[in-house]
């Protein structure tokens, strides 16, 4: 995959569609970039809050939105809120833009990889408060 290609380049490489007609100008990939980056941001917020929940008694109490569910209620709800809000904000800024794929893909992978590390118990338990 040459991820540096813009969607317009990709369409030019692909040539005409199955009908054999002329390829129309493709949609900009800004909305897709917004969805990808919002996924990474939501995941990162999940990871950061998981660590903060272990590190601070005050944050642990704040995150306990439901007594039955415990702090996981606040951690996951805030991650979903971050996902939705960042998607909306990024969509508004990027919807008409055509971005190179590579930086968007790399940024998304990096954010997701950090989130996986932050939510891994042997890592977040390093920050456990006494």
């Amino acid at each position: 995959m040459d991820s540096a290609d813009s969607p317009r380049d990709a369409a030019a490489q692909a040539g005409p569609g199955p009908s054999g007609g002329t390829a129309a100008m493709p949609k900009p990939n800004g909305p897709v970039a917004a969805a990808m980056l919002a996924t990474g941001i939501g995941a990162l917020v999940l990871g950061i809050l998981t660590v903060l929940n272990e590190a601070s008694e005050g944050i642990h109490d704040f995150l306990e939105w439901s007594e039955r569910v415990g702090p996981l209620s606040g951690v996951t709800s805030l991650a979903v809120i971050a996902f939705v809000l960042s998607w909306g904000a990024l969509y508004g800024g990027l919807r008409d833009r055509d971005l190179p794929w590579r930086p968007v893909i790399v940024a998304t992978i990096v954010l997701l990889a950090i989130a996986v590390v932050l939510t891994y118990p042997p890592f977040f338990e390093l920050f456990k408060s006494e």
Partner: protein
Amino acid sequence: MDLSTREFWALIHGLVLGGGFLLAFAGGMAGLYSLKPELVTEAGLTERIRRLVAGTTAMAVIAWVTVITGTWIVYPWYREDSPTSPRSVLLDNPDTADWHEWAFEWKEHIAWLAPLLATAAAFIVLYYRADLIKNQTARKVALGLFVAAFAVAAIAGILGALVTKNASV
């Protein structure tokens, strides 16, 4: 033969939704992988995209319902402050404590990445629809997000099944 309320919801969360997730993944994966101009006619493309939209959207919806029922319905029973709750039973025995401290603690967090990834994959399919066949980079990105969503859900599902084998709700 009766199912208790807890057994019913554990069944819905783990088996019914898990089975649906697997089915939607198989359909979406086959559709995304083979969406190449040389393999699809124009008439076939319309039908293929309809199935792809259904498969990827279903997987995203199922992923959301699975984590919401797991966190808000089943998890409180798992963690309740009683000596017979699965969490207490696992932590009471040093030989099984890791099933909570490592397996369940990881599962309860990482599972929430699945709906985020599956939603992004479904959005790409819904956004491009038939144009996805002309944009192979977007198709590969959707495929990557889709497979990542499945991988994360598989980790959470396997850990959940293993924990349940040691102490069930």
